[in-house]
């Protein structure tokens, strides 16, 4: 009777700061850099209105296409130069970063909730419910999501709301698969059977015994899917199908700026570098978290 697993009731959660410190101590140089970059990007995005020297939409036609600091024709006050309408690139980049991160975060959350519920339903009830949901999962895995996104955006037009919905549709199938698998595994464990025997409803079992146990794989999947959603949003906005001008995300700044690339490359280079910073940080952090979770799985 040594190994009867007991339901780890909502573990006492160490403060987010404590966890981050933990992560920092275990990381190598690149991972620490990614962690720092990630934290910095989030802080900058949150504080965008405070940090921006200008409004993201403020035009100053006299200062059009000014280069960044250090080049000739630099206009004081516009550190990273201006675009074709004299808008400050630094400010637009900060706001664009803010929008990119918020869109990706919203999209990931929606995908997580939808996927988790689907997986929970499929795993707990089984039968025809499970067949339909897993059929939908298989279909979505088989079709490249970019195609689905193109169809959606063409039909419903490009607005922030549609964009959030499209991004939310991404990745739910991964969560559903994970949750369903875990639920089916957990369902056979003694503590769930015991809860059943004690007369707990399905709802209560899902909430009190299953959910706390699948948090960790979901967190890992969340990080991975977050990085893909950042990519997807940037790509769609780059193609002109995402967020519409004058509002900018990092992707649409690169997309629109392409026309000015020969004469004013900074319009494109600055947001492109910002995208690289985001994808590097998110990718490395996601991989790192997955490796840590794997280690934990192996030691079980």
């Amino acid at each position, binding site marked *: 009777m040594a190994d009867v697993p007991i339901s780890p009731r909502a573990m006492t959660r160490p403060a987010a700061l404590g966890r981050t410190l933990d992560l920092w101590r275990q990381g190598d140089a690149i991972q620490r850099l990614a962690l720092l970059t990630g934290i910095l990007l989030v802080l900058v995005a949150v504080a965008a209105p405070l940090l921006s020297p200008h409004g993201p939409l403020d035009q100053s036609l006299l200062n059009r296409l000014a280069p960044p600091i250090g080049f000739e024709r630099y206009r004081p006050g516009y550190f990273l130069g201006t675009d074709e309408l004299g808008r400050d690139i630094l400010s637009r980049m900060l706001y664009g970063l803010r929008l990119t991160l918020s869109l990706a975060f919203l999209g990931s959350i929606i995908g997580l909730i939808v996927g988790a519920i689907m997986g929970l339903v499929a795993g707990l009830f089984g039968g025809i419910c499970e067949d339909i949901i897993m059929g939908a999962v298989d279909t979505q895995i*088989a079709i490249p999501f970019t195609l689905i996104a193109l169809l959606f955006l063409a039909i419903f037009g490009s607005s922030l709301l549609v964009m959030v919905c499209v991004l939310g549709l991404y990745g739910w199938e991964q969560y559903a698969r994970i949750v369903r698998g875990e639920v089916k595994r957990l369902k056979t464990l003694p503590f769930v059977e015991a809860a059943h025997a004690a007369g707990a409803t399905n709802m209560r079992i899902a909430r009190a015994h299953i959910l706390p146990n699948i948090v960790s794989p979901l967190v890992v999947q969340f990080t991975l899917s977050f990085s893909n959603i950042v990519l997807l949003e940037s790509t769609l906005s780059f193609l002109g199908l995402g967020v519409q001008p004058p509002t900018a995300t990092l992707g649409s700044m690169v997309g629109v700026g392409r026309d000015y690339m020969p004469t004013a490359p900074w319009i494109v280079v600055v947001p492109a570098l910002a995208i*690289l910073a985001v994808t590097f940080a998110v990718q490395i952090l996601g991989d790192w978290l997955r490796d840590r979770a794997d280690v934990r799985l192996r030691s079980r």
Partner: protein
Amino acid sequence: MLSYIARAAARILLTFLVVITLAFAATRLSGNPIDYIAGQGLTQEDRALLIRYYGLDRSVAEQYLAFLKSFFDGEFGLSYVERRPVSVVVAERIWPSLQLLLSSVALTLALSIPLGVLAAIWRNSWVGSAIMSFAFLFYAVPNFVLATFMILVFAYWLNWLPVVGNGSWAHFIMPTIAMSGILIAGLTRFTRNAMLDVLGQDFMRTARAKGLTETEVIFRHGLRNASITILSVIGLQVAGLAAAGSVVVESIFSWPGIGELLVRSAILRDYPVLQFGVIAVSAAVLLINVLVDIAYGFADPRIRFGKA
């Protein structure tokens, strides 16, 4: 083997039917496309005429049946924008797309498999870690960012390469690299891991013990066994990534392929083209999945005989 193929085919056919239905349902959700394509100054009579012309006055069920029927006629309706049969519009895009896809896959295989094998063999030296660091960093570079930087450097600053179109071999260089970047990074990492798994197996020690040279051990026993897992990734991941990549890369370089057509018809709301394009690309991806499943069966007798 036959029942194995039949099962794979049945699953794919079902998925395909779902795709067709979804593509149809999606484009009918948005009201009347005539309002988008014909613009403002249209008289009532002309509008009614156009609606009749495109068959939009019939009931949804009739339209769905006509849509399904068009698959057997090989017509697929008329493009709203080009006023030509969709099949013609899409067909002339296939070859350029295929060319770009093939050159990208060739580049990916030529680079990532040797690199992955090397990274696995020299996993403890600086060569291995250098390869893996590069693969890791490249995996985080979105293809449109890679393309943008390449255009900036090689087209505008150095003036070496053309940006637009597919006229000569020089036109292939940047789109191919832009498409392959992520694929190479991903497949290198994957090949290394698959090789590492195999290198640790007992039969590798046996192969060495019976006196094979290191090259023979690695290629005949190592890579051959790793190739099964590598193959599945090529089929499943690469097909999806390449479809997504071609949409972006073809748009950037104005490559006259299906990806560029899809984006253009999404922006112009040319539903018949978009619909059929999505179905065609999905079908291609699904077909590749089936082929990989089957190839998988050939490569691994355990799967073929249903013993795995």
